[in-house]
């Protein structure tokens, strides 16, 4: 059961602002302001306007924490407040499963620059390393911060699986609650990849769009002219709670995770086969776990990264898994609005699914003015669509060949 939600995403901080961005179909992509992106091939991204002090972080937290850690802390505080879980839970049965693809890489790079004299020295000078530089190269430090914020004493871990980290972290949390290891899990994901090194990595792969002259139209999932991803950043934290535990304390159950599965394509670290076989298998397994048939799925939150290969791969996978029903089910990509925040996006997309279920409105695929004829499903172009959705599927695909799927359902169905 999902009983709390916290979101930091481009376009606005907090669940409310996030949903306003999505339901308005607004694109948060713009020229990069976080650093001088002039020497890079791709110079646009979906940035979060983030002032640590305004978001309630202490100067100490702002100094100690990487941007990804700061996002996570803001999101976990919102989620905890939203859930009202404090003091109702046995801390030894409260855990954390946090997703992140690249951890505290913003500070890691800054610290690298400091100790290497701006890349001049191979034998970096350890005397310039701040005492907490080590957590910047160990992704688990982000889970530590979240666990402290929630005062957990149960199992705490970071799940890292590239761009499906968020989905897999929540999936792991659900497994722990299901098998009785924990009563409540604080879960979700965070990433802040808008740094020179990450931009350079994506430049080298030609994976980002070079459409610098049209930031808002940069990310065009399922579009005939799509040519790459737009990087984003952000975090989502969810409170996942055992049903009886939630019911006993009278928690407001926002939605339920019905099923989850992850698979590997065992093919290529960055490439995808057009048949979408392994993603389809993940979808099938998640539906089976959820005991949901393809005809029951009312919305698909797509990975929809906006690369040539992903959108074809994904369209095939959805058709392969859902059969003829695929053509009737609305499917949209919120990356068209908030970009691709690597490990965080899977959790942000789960938040979007929860809000879709709650509000009965399907967020659109922005920028989809001219559909690729090979992408022939209903991608909810441009404008949000009011529609009751009780059962939704969210899917992700990422570097490493990881393929994940999760089925979520409205809570009141179960309760009734």
């Amino acid at each position, binding site marked *: 059961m999902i009983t709390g939600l916290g979101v930091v995403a481009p376009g606005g901080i907090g669940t409310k602002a996030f949903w306003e961005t999505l339901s308005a179909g607004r694109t948060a992509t713009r020229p990069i302001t976080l650093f001088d992106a002039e*020497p*890079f*091939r791709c110079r646009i991204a979906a940035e979060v306007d983030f002032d640590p002090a305004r978001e309630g972080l202490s100067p100490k937290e702002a100094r*100690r924490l990487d941007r990804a850690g700061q996002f996570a802390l803001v999101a976990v505080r919102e989620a905890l407040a939203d859930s009202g879980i404090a003091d109702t839970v046995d*801390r030894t049965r409260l*855990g954390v499963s946090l997703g*992140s693809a*690249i951890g505290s890489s913003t500070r890691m*790079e800054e610290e690298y620059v400091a*100790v*290497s004299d*701006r*890349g001049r020295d*191979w*034998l*970096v*000078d*350890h005397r310039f*390393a701040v*005492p*907490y530089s*080590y*957590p*910047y*190269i160990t*992704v*688990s*430090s982000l*889970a*530590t911060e979240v*666990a*402290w914020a929630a005062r*957990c*004493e*149960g*199992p*705490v*871990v*970071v*799940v*890292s*699986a*590239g761009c499906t*980290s968020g989905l*897999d972290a929540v999936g792991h949390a659900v497994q722990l609650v299901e098998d009785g290891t924990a009563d409540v899990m604080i879960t979700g994901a965070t990433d802040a990849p808008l740094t*020179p090194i990450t*931009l*350079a990595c994506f430049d*080298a792969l030609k994976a980002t769009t070079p459409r610098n002259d049209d930031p808002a139209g940069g990310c065009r999932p399922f579009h005939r002219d799509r040519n790459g991803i737009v990087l984003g950043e952000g975090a989502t934290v969810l409170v996942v709670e055992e049903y009886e535990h939630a019911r006993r304390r009278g928690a407001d159950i926002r939605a339920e995770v019905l099923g989850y*599965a*992850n*698979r*590997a394509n*065992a093919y290529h*670290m*960055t490439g995808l086969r057009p048949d979408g076989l*392994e993603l389809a298998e993940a979808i099938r397994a998640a539906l089976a776990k959820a005991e949901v048939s393809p005809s029951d799925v009312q919305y698909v939150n797509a990975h929809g990264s906006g690369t040539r290969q992903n959108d074809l791969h994904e369209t095939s996978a959805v058709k392969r898994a859902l059969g003829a029903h695929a053509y009737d089910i609305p499917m949209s990509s919120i990356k068209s609005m908030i970009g691709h925040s690597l490990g965080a996006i899977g959790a942000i997309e789960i938040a979007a699914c929860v809000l879709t279920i709650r509000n009965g409105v399907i967020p659109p695929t922005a920028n989809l003015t001219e559909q690729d004829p090979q992408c022939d499903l209903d991608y909810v172009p441009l404008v949000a669509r009011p529609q009751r959705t009780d059962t939704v599927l969210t899917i992700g695909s990422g570097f*490493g*060949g*990881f393929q994940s799927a999760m089925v979520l359902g409205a809570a009141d169905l179960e309760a009734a």
Partner: protein
Amino acid sequence: MTGAVVTGLGVASPNGVGTEEYWRATLEGRSGIRPIRLFDAAPYPVRLAGEVDFDAEAYIPGKFRAQTDQMTQLAMAATVMAFADAGLDPAGMPAFEMGVTVANSSGGIMFGQRELQQLWSQGPTYVSAYMSVAWFYASTAGQLSIRHGMKGPALVLASEQAGGLDAVGHARRQIRCGTPLMVTGGSDASLAPVGLAFQIATGMLSTRRDPSRAYLPFDRDANGYLPGNGGAILVLEDADAAEARGVPGVYGEIAGYAATFDPPLDDGEPGPDTAAYDPPRGSGRSPRLRRAAELALADAGVAPGDIDVVFADAWGLPALDWEEARAITELFGPRGVPVTAPKTMTGRLYAGAALDLVTALLSIRDGVIPPTLNVTEPAPGTDLDLVLREPRRRTVRHALVLARGLGGFNSAIVVSAPTTHARSST
């Protein structure tokens, strides 16, 4: 036979590449801790570490080598060994029935530093196309799934030095959820100039120059630890599935697992500026480590008296050693169980600490507990039955393995002797 059983092992460790090489060295008390050679460590106060003498070409094709950091190569070599050891050709197995959960802590940092240097000294177009797949934490799970055609669940777990155990616990859960075979364990290669510099900044490493007097867990002279590169991989199978395929032998069962977390040091915001990652001080810590051990024992359905040996986390800092010693004596009584730390011969391998599980399984197989090296005078107050200098003969039916990670992670696994198809010593 039910449960999740270990059917294959692979090791790439500072004191031995190959399971039997490693095991011989460990029983003979041969250490892999030496002056750092991967780069010139002269400018640093820490110049000793456990590096792996390792011919990557012998295990890994060129195209995989080019796009991986050593953290992945260590796991890849160990996986090749583990499959061979399990008598398995993954190409002949159903792809969706094999998954990967491995631990990692610090990413592909040597590769990463090289490319950061390219970026900052020359510019973005000088960054390798391989950087994006070599550095990130999940790299090893992706590459292993590709190399061996494993399409089941795949991901990386990170909980600093506790991750190696958490990965195996997670793999066992995937077996229970229906994937009959999991490749699991962990690997790390933190030894790059920037990796070492940041580790030095924690203040937790030993700055001693004498390899025999540097990393001395539970010793009155404990003064920090030394890091090591390394990887250990286990093939974990559903016991019935292993039986059905005619498994050549079983090392043991992952019988119990649990993880706990230490709360902040006080009731306010976690620590002053740096205390968050300082060595946690004295009190407040051991109850959670003990609880992890208790939960793992309960999960395995065994009592403290059933445990024949404890493989300690053995951090090598007085306060942390004391806490662990207290947790062990509270659970087993003073000198109530043999305790050992063969990692004194490798350095602390971070996610590679899954190696302790391999060692525990070999102890079960051969009925011998490997020694803790270099420790001569246990610290006052650590009332442990440490296995020092010489291996100790003892039938091992159940072993408890402990691991802790900086930031508050505690993990414990109970490995138990197989009920059938036991491996015989080679």
